[in-house]
């Protein structure tokens, strides 16, 4: 197995403040200084060594205070933690510890570059031969421990030392035993037992079974007595009930008797008020009314009703006669309604016929007036025909005149042509002085020309004038005849209209005659309907009177019958009352006995209830007492058990305390020689020659006192009152370094975290000298903020024996590491 393992190199990536990989090459330097301000990552380097060796950290394993998780060890900006630590001793051990965020950690160990395969963690422990807790006590020295030992009061100093010796664990275990909790429980049980004792005392004589037995006998006796009394009470009650029933019947009969009497008086009063009607008279009235009704029904064609009335020709005075008369009355009402309806219809018809008659008469007058206007055309037409003939003859004559006019027109044109020719010929002859006719070429003589002139003149003055006059005459005649013809045709139109009007008038006269007949017929009908209505109304009145009379007749008859019945009932009640007997004295005697029995029964029942209550209470108390006893026994058992447990725990505490003392003695014995050996290496002055650490037992806890032997007189003096700070520091350091080898292990380095905090320059120098003078450990890590340490170490151990790394803030990437020496 390798011995004296030193650190050769350390590479950190993704651990705490380190993000990007940073490597520390340590070569064979004795002092490794990590310099940097607060939070620059110095302590993280030391914790990285711890984490590489144990896969955990004090901050993860410690109890109480703030406890971290493995995840918290991974840098915030990285997902992978990786620490590579190379230890060098007889063998070279390479430890690679990694952890991915959210995944379990992994460890690889290489022994002389050969990977270890099975149970790597165990192998590593075997190599370093030191557990995690021992490592924290022996290898890691924090300035706070130094401060507590050098400057702390007795208790604080003792706690720090106990922690170093591992005794603090025993002390804390001792304190953690919750005796108070057991005590509280014991007190609680004692209180409960006390309460149960009180309850039992209250219950009192629950254990007297004789009393319960005697009570049971009393209860049975009382129950028998109550049963006998109840039987007697029942008999008396039954007799009383019978008597009460008879009495009740008698009272009921009397009530009935008086009630019937009063009814009889009431009927007599009513009979006095109701008129007496003769049966013969009323039958005669009915027959008369029925005869009239039959006649009216036949007239009104109510055949069914009429037949029904004929079914029973003889009138029998029964109650149903009123019903029959009511039916007739109802039918009469229907007849009245029919007649009213008919009358309304007839009246409406009459109004309609009258309206239509008036309209036709108006039309007749209008037609007569129009005919009067047109009648003269007929005379004018006769005159014109007489004078000019019929229109066809006039047309023929107009045609003849027109033919003659055409003929004359032709002749007139011929004459005009001749005149024109003559004029042209005459004018040419006269102008051209011709001798020949320009038309026929015939030689002309003077007479010819004259003849032509005469002829022209004759045509101009005579022939043409005659023809024109004749034509004018004919045209005048034609016009006259045409006017006449037109006039005749106009008159013919009017005569046709006149003939139409005369036909219309005839038709109208026929209609007027018809309407007039209808109107007359309607008036006759109205008269008939009104007559029937009068008869029906009369019959209705008679029927109503008759029904009233019959109602009175039957009411009287019914009252008489009821009177007879009541009288019969009264007779029978009288007979029954005479039969009923009632003995009042016997009734009162029985009633008195019943009351007496009820009183005795009530008293006995109350007594029984009270006895039963008392009996139940006793039984319940007995049950409760049993239950309390049972609970008390259980509690007592538990209490006994707890007291035993308390003693047991006290013994444990005592044992722990004794072991604590044993361990303290052992530890002090073990470190005393080491401490003196180290002290002698460190402190070379002759004034202080030996150191001793002693435990003093006090009631609360053991405290430590460190003494030093003065060289001059050999006296042991306490260091806290007699030595300087520097001297005390050296003694404390001797103590810590002696603990370094308290248990044998293979680690040959020590980690000092801020050992110089609050320590002045002289003391620092002394500490460094002391550390330089010690034989073991051969590798000392110092993490400090103070850069002046570098020069001090240089001076003490020389440049070759030291390495200094400066750590500064590096942002997300992690601390920047610079080797400065």
């Amino acid at each position, binding site marked *: 197995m390798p011995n004296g393992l030193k650190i050769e190199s350390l590479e950190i990536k993704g651990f705490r403040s380190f993000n990007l990989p940073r490597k520390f090459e340590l070569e064979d330097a004795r002092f490794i200084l990590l310099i940097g301000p607060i939070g620059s990552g110095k302590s993280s380097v030391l914790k990285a060594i711890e984490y590489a060796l144990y896969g955990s950290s004090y901050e993860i394993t410690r109890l109480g205070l703030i406890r971290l998780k493995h995840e918290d060890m991974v840098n915030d900006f990285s997902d992978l933690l990786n620490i590579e630590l190379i230890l060098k001793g007889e063998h070279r051990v390479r430890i690679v510890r990694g952890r991915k965020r959210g995944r379990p950690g992994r460890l690889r160990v290489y022994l002389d570059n050969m990977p270890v395969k099975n149970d790597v963690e165990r192998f590593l422990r075997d190599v370093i031969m030191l557990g995690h807790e021992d490592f924290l006590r022996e290898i890691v020295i924090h300035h706070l421990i130094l401060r507590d030992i050098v400057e702390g009061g007795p208790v604080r100093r003792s706690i720090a030392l106990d922690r170093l010796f591992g005794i603090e664990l025993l002390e804390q275990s001792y304190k953690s035993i919750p005796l108070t*909790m057991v005590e509280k429980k014991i007190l609680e049980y004692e209180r409960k037992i006390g309460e149960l004792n009180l309850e039992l005392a209250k219950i009192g004589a629950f254990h007297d079974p004789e009393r319960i037995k005697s009570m049971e006998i009393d209860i049975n006796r009382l129950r028998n007595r109550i049963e006998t009394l109840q039987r007697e009470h029942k008999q008396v009650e039954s007799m009383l009930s019978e008597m009460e029933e008879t009495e009740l019947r008698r009272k009921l009969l009397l009530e009935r008797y008086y009630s019937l009497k009063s009814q009889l008086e009431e009927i007599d009063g009513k009979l006095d008020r109701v008129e007496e009607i003769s049966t013969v008279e009323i039958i005669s009235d009915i027959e008369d009314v029925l005869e009239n009704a039959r006649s009216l029904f036949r007239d009104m064609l109510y055949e069914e009703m009429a037949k029904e009335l004929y079914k029973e020709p003889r009138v029998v005075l029964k109650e149903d006669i009123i019903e029959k008369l009511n039916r007739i009355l109802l039918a009469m009402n229907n007849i009245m309604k029919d007649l009213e309806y008919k009358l309304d219809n007839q009246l409406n018809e009459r109004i309609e016929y009258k309206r239509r008659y008036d309209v036709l008469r108006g039309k007749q007058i209008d037609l007569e007036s129009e005919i009067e206007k047109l009648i003269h055309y007929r005379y004018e037409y006769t005159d014109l025909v007489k004078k000019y003939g019929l229109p066809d003859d006039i047309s023929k004559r107009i045609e003849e005149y027109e033919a003659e006019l055409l003929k004359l027109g032709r002749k007139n044109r011929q004459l005009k042509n001749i005149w024109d020719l003559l004029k042209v010929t005459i004018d040419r002859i006269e102008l051209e002085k011709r001798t020949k006719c320009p038309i026929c070429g015939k030689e002309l003589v003077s007479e010819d020309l004259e003849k032509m002139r005469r002829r022209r003149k004759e045509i101009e003055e005579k022939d043409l004038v005659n023809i024109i006059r004749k034509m004018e005459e004919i045209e005048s005649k034609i016009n006259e005849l045409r006017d006449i013809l037109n006039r005749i045709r106009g008159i013919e139109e009017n005569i046709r209209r006149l003939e139409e009007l005369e036909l219309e008038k005839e038709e109208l006269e026929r209609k007027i005659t018809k309407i007039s007949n209808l109107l007359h017929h309607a008036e006759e009908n109205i008269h008939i309907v009104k007559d029937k209505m009068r008869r029906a109304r009369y019959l209705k009145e008679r029927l109503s009177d008759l029904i009233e009379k019959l109602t009175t007749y039957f009411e009287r008859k019914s009252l008489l019958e009821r009177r007879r019945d009541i009288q019969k009932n009264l007779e029978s009640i009288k007979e029954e009352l005479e039969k009923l007997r009632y003995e009042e004295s016997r009734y009162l005697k029985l009633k008195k006995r019943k009351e007496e029995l009820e009183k005795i029964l009530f008293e006995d029942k109350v007594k029984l209830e009270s006895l039963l209550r008392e009996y139940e209470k006793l039984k319940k108390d007995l049950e409760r007492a049993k239950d309390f006893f049972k609970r008390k026994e259980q509690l007592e058992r538990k209490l006994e058990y707890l007291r035993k447990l308390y003693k*047991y725990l006290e*013994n444990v505490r005592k044992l722990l305390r004794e072991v604590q003392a044993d*361990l303290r003695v052992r530890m002090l014995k073990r470190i005393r020689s080491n401490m003196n050996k180290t002290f002698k290496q460190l402190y070379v002055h002759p004034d202080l020659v030996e150191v001793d650490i002693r435990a003093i037992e006090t009631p609360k806890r053991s405290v430590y006192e460190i003494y030093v032997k003065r060289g001059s007189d050999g006296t042991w003096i306490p260091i806290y009152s007699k030595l300087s700070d520097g001297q005390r520091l050296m003694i404390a350091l001797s103590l810590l370094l002696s603990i370094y080898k308290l248990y044998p292990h293979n680690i040959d380095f020590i980690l000092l975290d801020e050992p110089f905090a609050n320590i002045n320059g002289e003391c620092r120098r002394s500490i460094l000298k002391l550390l330089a003078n010690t034989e073991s450990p051969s590798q000392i890590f110092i993490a400090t903020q103070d850069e002046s340490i570098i020069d001090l170490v240089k001076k003490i151990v020389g440049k070759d024996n030291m390495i200094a790394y400066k750590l500064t803030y590096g942002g997300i990437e992690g601390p920047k590491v610079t080797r400065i020496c």
Partner: protein
Amino acid sequence: MRRKYESKLIEEILNLIDSRVEYDKNTRKLAKTILLAFKNEGRKGVEKIVENMMEGKNLDA
């Protein structure tokens, strides 16, 4: 069996407890149980053991 090198101190303490033969076996056993419970779980671990014992479980542990 105790794990070697887990903590030499604990090992020594447990041995010291075992060496106290004037105490009965159960007391020694309980002292060791309490010590380890405190080491691993703190005060609550010890309280849990004592609570269980108060309820009648595990008095002979």
